[in-house]
Structures are given as structure tokens and as C-alpha cells.
């Protein structure tokens, strides 16, 4: 027996870029995150060949989950062809041999920045959300060690207070994206800067969601069939963006989250934010055989 027979042939990088010790730490922290839904787990967060703040947290989770048989979809703002999504997707397939896809239905693994696809995710799919700031308490407590103590004490009073103050000042809750939500009735998490439209999709979902912030070195999870409740007062219902009646000027589809495109004439047109859903709708209208899966929203409304 020689040393050579005991070792693998030399390779410039490990499979899936991250080395075995990094992946082991990731697996442990990801399992821990599943065990305590919504609770932020600190992790080492290795440097990856992309700048911090560009999806490095999501990337480390995705790289840990990837295998050659995976089919990976990457979106930014809902679009597969957005420049950074394209860059991440090509890196993922290059280092793992996984197939690339734009189709939500065909993907086994979806890494996303700021959106959850409109088609319902299944139990055999994993969603990885990129998170810039994992701390829902940041607006009331920028110090991370103090905020950590507040989570331990379930001390969320000041978070309720800012929602109340918004109502007093503006007549409504003014939170835009990244609306704080209570997970499994214990930890408040930020669902990452997804629009309010997308937060109800996480509630009692069939799929597993990981949320990972590479720069801030924290990851957390929403396991399947877990309660995710946006913070609301009992007499003030949760309000998603008023997009239910908007119509996509390209595909003609209505009832989903839209991008507003300002026009020269002073008005606006709207287009579907979930770009692949738009493509599928157009192709179907052109007569192609395209399968569009069931969507979370029906006729612009989230069924209760």
C-alpha cells in the first residue's frame, strides 16, 4: 500500500468549492437551525469567491446542499437572468456539476434574493434565501450581543412599539419588505427582504427554507409545516402589497407581485416580478405545452 492509494487525486478545489471542514460546520449549524425554527445560529462563514453582501451566505448553504443530481435555480428580485443571479448560478453548476434551471417546478434547490417564487414549492424542494441583515431587532437594537439576549428573553416589546408608532404617525403600518414574523410562536425572524406579499408563503409551507447571512455570519431556518406569523395587532390585519389586481403588460397575467416600470408619458406599466412565470405564461399563450404549477395566490388573494 502506498500513500497515493489512500488519498484522492489532487484537485484545485474541493467538490462544491467549500472544503470538508467548512461543510461539516455548515451541516451542523443547518441541522441546529432546523431544530430551533427561526433562531439565528452563528457560523464561521468562510470567504467565497464573491463579495460579501452578494449572496455569500445563501451560497454557502447551497454549496453544502448541492449534489451532481441537483437542479438549481437562482433568482434575484424574482428574475433568473438578473446579472448576479446568473453569476451565482454559473458558479454553482461549475463547482458541482448540478443542472441549471429557470423553471421553479424543475428545481430541487432554489437560491433567491428578495423573492419567493409564485408557484407553490413542494416537499422535495429546498429554498435558500439570501439575507443581508438577519437581525429583526436591528432597528431597535443595533448591538448584536444585546439583541441576542433579547431573543433569549423573547423580549420583543420594542418591535411591537415601532409598529404601533407607525400606525399613530401614518395611519398604517409602514414596514415595506423584510416584515418581521414570529416563527413557531417563539423566535421573531426577519424573512429577509422579501415583500410582505411573500411572507404568508412561508406559513405551514411544505418545503424547507434556509435563510443565511454570510456577512453577518448567521443562519436560520423555517422547517416544513412551521407557523410563520407576521407581527400584527389583533384588530389590524396584515396587509400585503396592493398588487392583486395589477396586470402584467407583457404576459397579460394578473394576481401576482409586480414590478412597476415608470413610463415617459408620466404613467406606469407593470410586469410580473417572477420572471419565469411570465415567460411560461407567454409561451403558453403562444400555444406551447408549458406546465405552470399551482400558485400560492389565487386570483390575487392568498387562500386562508
Amino acid at each position, binding site marked *: 500500500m502506498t500513500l497515493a492509494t489512500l488519498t484522492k487525486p489532487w484537485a484545485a478545489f474541493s467538490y462544491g468549492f467549500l472544503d470538508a471542514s467548512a461543510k461539516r460546520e455548515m451541516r451542523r449549524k443547518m441541522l441546529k437551525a432546523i431544530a430551533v425554527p427561526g433562531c439565528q445560529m452563528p457560523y464561521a462563514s468562510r470567504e467565497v469567491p464573491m*463579495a460579501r*453582501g*452578494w449572496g455569500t451566505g445563501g451560497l454557502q448553504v447551497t454549496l453544502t446542499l448541492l449534489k451532481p443530481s441537483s437542479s438549481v435555480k437562482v433568482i434575484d*428580485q424574482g428574475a433568473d437572468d438578473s*446579472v448576479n443571479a446568473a453569476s451565482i448560478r454559473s458558479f454553482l453548476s461549475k463547482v458541482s456539476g448540478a443542472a441549471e434551471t429557470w423553471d421553479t417546478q424543475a428545481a430541487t434547490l432554489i437560491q433567491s434574493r428578495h423573492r419567493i417564487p409564485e408557484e407553490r414549492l413542494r416537499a422535495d424542494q429546498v429554498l435558500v434565501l439570501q439575507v443581508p441583515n438577519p437581525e429583526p431587532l436591528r432597528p431597535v437594537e443595533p448591538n448584536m450581543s444585546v439583541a441576542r439576549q433579547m431573543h433569549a428573553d423573547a423580549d420583543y416589546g420594542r418591535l411591537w412599539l415601532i409598529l404601533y408608532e407607525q400606525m399613530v404617525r401614518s395611519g398604517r403600518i409602514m414596514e415595506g419588505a423584510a416584515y418581521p414574523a414570529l416563527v413557531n410562536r417563539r423566535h421573531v425572524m426577519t424573512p429577509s427582504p422579501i415583500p410582505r406579499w411573500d411572507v404568508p408563503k412561508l406559513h405551514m409551507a411544505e418545503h424547507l427554507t434556509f435563510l443565511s447571512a454570510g456577512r453577518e455570519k448567521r443562519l436560520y431556518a423555517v422547517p416544513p409545516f412551521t407557523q410563520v406569523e407576521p407581527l400584527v395587532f389583533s384588530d389590524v390585519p396584515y396587509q400585503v402589497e396592493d398588487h392583486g389586481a395589477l396586470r402584467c403588460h407583457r404576459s397579460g397575467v394578473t394576481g401576482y407581485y*409586480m414590478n412597476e416600470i415608470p413610463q415617459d408619458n408620466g404613467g406606469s406599466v407593470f410586469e410580473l416580478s417572477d420572471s419565469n412565470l411570465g415567460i411560461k405564461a*407567454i409561451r403558453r399563450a403562444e400555444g406551447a405545452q408549458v406546465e405552470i404549477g399551482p400558485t400560492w395566490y389565487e386570483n390575487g388573494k392568498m387562500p386562508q
Partner: protein
Amino acid sequence: MAYVATRGGERAIAQSERLYRAELGQIDAARVDTLRKTLPMLIDRVMGEASLYEPDLAALALAQAGGDLYEAVLLLRAWRTTQPRLSIAEPVLQDRLFTHRRISAAFKDIPGGQILGPSLDYAHRLLATDVLRGRPFTPAPVDPAPTPAPACQPSLAAWQKAHGLVADPAPVEVAPDDIPDLTREPLLFPAKRAHTLQSLARADTGGMLALGYSAMRGYGSAHPTVNELRLAEAEVRVRHPRGTVFSAGRVKVSQAEVTSKGKSGLLELGFCATLGWNEVKVISGATLDLNARGAAKGSPVEEEFFLYHTEPVEASGFCIHFKLPHYVTFQSSLDALRGAKAAPAPTKPEQVPA
């Protein structure tokens, strides 16, 4: 398929990268070699922030990034993190450093002597414009001292400790293999001492200067006196699997120890060391370290504040990420804004009779 035609996606990013690289031209070994030889201070700064001592790779990273320091540091960090940790070197001791420069502002003269070493501190900062007119600048030769300074110097703090002048917290005994490693563990607060020092060692020079300077100007309570500043070479002593300890080579290191009188009535010390020679960084870092004890939450001299905000890869990455599209979140805010405009004005509180 008109839906996607307006976005360039893959082609756009490929061409954008080509455009950038076209400006830099061909990168060859000669260019890397020239950078390494002619810009030692820059190479040192990059190696320190990357926490990777490899001048050739640092020069390569600078060449590849066209001199963008944050890009160069990221290139090196991303390479470094894939490398296995083969061995942990023995601790470097002050009095074993091969010292090139060692000064103290605390005393006129110190045991072992003040050694100026290489420095521009007292140079007149005049541009050698003749160089551009074809007359090369040739530095005057150094006249060696009649008696060379000893290679190793004692630590000044050791003298102060012997005189009972310095607050001397008991060292925490850690086996070399158990030293916490910031590159393999998250930084949490209150930070382990090893994490603090490692974090300072790889901090961004400019960021550290900004926060350190704010402390020096008065946003910190302790005014630093440079107890000892050293530029040195350290022997990297590692244990061979057979048990023999051998030197794997030397690395340039810089360290600063600053001091001020603490509340205890004793001198307190702040410390910072880094790979490579970088005086501004270690003096700033040591000043922050000195001020960190008991600092108020959220003040610039609080450990959590300055360590998080001087991490070059994290800070620069997050800064440039704002170039990424944010139109989904912006749309969400617009919706709330329009909703508030449309909503009836908040009801006025009822008038309570006086």
C-alpha cells in the same frame, strides 16, 4: 420570448468583466515580480488584511485586481480559506523577534535602546519630479553603525511589570492546538482575547485608522502613549510530525503597545500586531484595544463596534452590494407610502375638558 430580451444577464456580465480586464492587459510573472519588489509596504498591508503571508500571491492579487485593495484582499481570503491548516506554529515571543525598528515614546531611552530602523518619519516629503524628466532617483547608500544593534530586544512592558507599574491580567493558559481560530469560528461578544487580536490583525487599515483616530481625538477616554512599536521578523517555528521543532521561515510582523494610566492607578496596555509592516494600523488598533475596556455599548471604542466595522471584506462587500437591484423592496416601500397617503388621516385624540 420578448420577456427577457431587455436584460443582458450572462452575456452582459461576461463582457463587463472583459472590459475591466482589457484595461489591465496581460498579467505575467514579470509584472507580479515587479509589484512584489517595488511595493513592499502595499504588499505588507494586503497580506495583513488577508491574514495570509505570501508576498508572491499578494502581488498576484494586486496585479489581478489592478491595485484595488479590497478586491485583492478578497481574492487572497477566498484562496486562503480553501487551504488546510497543516500545523500551528509556536507562539512568537517579543524578546525573540529579529527586530529592525523599535521605538518607545514613553521613555527617552529604554533597556536595549531605541532603534530607528527604516523609516520616512523624519523625511521631507518632496516629490522627486526629476524622475519624470528622465533622471532616476538613486537612494544614498546607508552608512552602517560602528556597532550593530543586537538582533533581539527585551520587552519594555516586562521592565514595567517588574516595577509593578502595569496592570497585569493573568494569562489564560491555552494549549497551542486549542487557540480559538477566527477563520473557523464566528466572532461573538464578549470576544475571546484570541479572536479580538486576530480580528485586529486582519482589520482594514483605513477603517482602523478612522475609528482609532476618533478615539485619539477624544471619543475615547484613554490617550495613548506609544509604549513600544516594533517592526520585526518572526521565526515561524513548527513541530515536525517526528517531534523536532524547526523554523519554516521568517515573516515580517509589526506590533504596537500603547499605554495610559487606568482607573486602577496602574498603567493599562492596548496591543495590536499584524503580519507585514504597517505602523498606522497597529498604533490605531492598539489604541482601540486600550479604550475597549468598559466602553459604552455603541461607542466607536466598543469592541463589537470597531471589530465588526473594520472587517475589510465584509465592509467593502456590503458597501458595493448596494449597486445590486433593490426594486422589489423599493416597490414594497412605495406601496406602504402610497397606502399611507390614501389612508384617512389619523384620528385626532379626543379633547379632554380641562
